[in-house]
């Protein structure tokens, strides 16, 4: 069946399979969270503070004596949610703006794309800091900020696909049949513009997790005592010399999830690249 070709192709790629496995692992941990965590991630134990890894606390404890393993496990939920929600916030408006700009062209195109250029002119993290500073530091606002920052990326990718697609004979043929703009855009242009977006969105999940962690680290994202990985990293920073495990484990968790998304994104790019696929 034609629909399953991409999936089979994906599993033939070792790195994509590894990426998929890493994401599945983090996703599984996120879903099973409370069942897997050995301790309450919020329960403090002043007597056990900054303890190294042991049988009772495999990842050790932090400055308040909380179990780091449990906090990392609970943090998986937050990070997966950050990835999904902030990518959705950039994906849908970005795709729509790119479709409209590329298809209708002229002044609308100029207006939309110049606005996108304005957003792109700022370094991503600076813009995200700016937006969270306006909205107020909190986890939902972090997702919104990271989402808005990446809207122009999707708009640009979609626009460039649309510019090529609207000249294609099969798109023009629908207009020759009397088909309207909506039919042409959503039935014929959009489905053919999707592959690069799927790849970018997958890679974007990793970037979003990283950006949200950075905002958390800077104190603008999730707020303590939330077990967000970036916040944990920030808390552990002060004890790097005496208790490196406090920062190392949440850092490793970010690494695993971002690596998973990047490997999967690269694999998807190879599979969906039309020049590599036989007709």
């Amino acid at each position, binding site marked *: 069946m*034609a629909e399953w070709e991409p999936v089979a192709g994906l599993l033939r790629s070792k790195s994509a399979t590894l990426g998929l496995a890493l994401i599945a692992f983090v996703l599984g941990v996120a879903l099973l969270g409370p069942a897997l965590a050995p301790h309450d991630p919020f329960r403090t134990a002043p007597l056990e503070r900054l303890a190294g890894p042991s049988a009772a606390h495999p990842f050790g404890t932090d400055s308040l004596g909380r179990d780091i393993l449990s906090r990392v496990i609970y943090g998986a939920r937050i990070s997966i949610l950050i990835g999904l929600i902030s990518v959705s916030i950039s994906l849908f408006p970005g795709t729509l703006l790119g479709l409209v700009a590329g298809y209708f062209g002229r002044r609308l195109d100029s207006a939309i794309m110049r606005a996108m250029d304005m957003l792109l002119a700022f370094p991503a993290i600076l813009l995200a800091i700016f937006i969270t500073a306006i909205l107020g530091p909190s986890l939902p606002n972090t997702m919104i900020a990271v989402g808005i920052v990446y809207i122009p990326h999707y708009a640009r990718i979609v626009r460039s696909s649309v510019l090529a697609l609207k000249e*294609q*004979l*099969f798109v023009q043929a629908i207009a*020759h049949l009397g*088909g309207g703009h909506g039919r042409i855009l959503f039935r014929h242009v959009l*489905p*053919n513009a999707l592959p690069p977006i799927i790849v970018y969105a997958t890679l974007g999940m990793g970037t979003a997790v990283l950006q949200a962690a950075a905002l958390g680290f800077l104190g603008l994202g999730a707020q303590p005592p939330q077990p967000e990985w970036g916040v944990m990293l920030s808390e552990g920073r002060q004890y790097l010399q005496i208790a490196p495990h406090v920062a190392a484990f949440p850092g490793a968790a970010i690494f695993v999830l971002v690596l998973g998304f990047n490997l999967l994104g690269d694999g998807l790019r190879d599979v969906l690249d039309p020049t590599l696929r036989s*007709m």
Partner: protein
Amino acid sequence: MAEALLQAEGLVKHYPVRAAGLRQGRAAVRAVEGVSFAVGRGESFGIVGESGCGKSTLGRLLLRLEAPSAGRVLYRGEDLGRFDSRRLKAFRREAQIIYQDPYSSLNPRRRVGELIAEPLEIHGIGGPAERRARVAELLREVGLLPDHARRYPHEFSGGQRQRIVIARALALNPGILLADEPVSALDVSIQAQVVNLLRELQERLGLTYLFISHDLGLIEYVADRVGVMYLGRMVEIGPCAALCAAPLHPYTQALWSAAPVPDPTARKARILLAGDVPSPVRPPPGCAFHPRCREAFGRCREETPALREVAPGRLVACHNR
């Protein structure tokens, strides 16, 4: 000729070219330069010429896929340029197109059945079940199987894809079919099958054909009347049999003398033209053909010859005829 279904009146299409430098905005590719003719109902009209002579642009103008720079197209005596969007949509239903490249004229992500049903959907004809039945009927009509509706275009060969394109074009029971080089992208062995299908469909459905091609043999086979184009102008129009047997215009004569004859013993005089086709940005003054014409004389360099009827049904644009 029967009643005129489509009539071109002084059609002109210029594409401005943005030349670098000071004299910007002046230059234009003169793709079609004052073409007038009429196509009767049920007729098969062939348009021949070299690549770049404007024959495809003429086809696009005739179906109002593009607006002419000057002149107009009459459909059943009414100016297409004055049609509002509702009437234009009705005209789109009546006039269908078969494209040159069957590989790029079908959306690769949609099933054949969806592609063929799409014109029915656009014009709101029938319910889902009726459309499915119509798709099956159309597939059979073009020599494919109803089961093929579930497949994707990439599963088909070029000839089969062109059959799918034809099925889509027939879905709305059109009166006019514009075939723009319908077989030139196909293997020679497949070309005959597709051409025969097109001819058979014309007889059975009483279609009016506009057949654009550079292949003289093909035009001789399918056309009732032929129009020969050179640098955006019609240089000769006539009934296919008479024109092919005895072309009148010097360009037509040269063109026909270059066509291969499927007989190894036949010896015929080749008329070799000197030079290349001039640029349509700056066509020669007077008769556009005069720099390459062996019969050219003073008047040809100054005055553009008009298309005149020199014998019943035979029109030539040449000062010498």
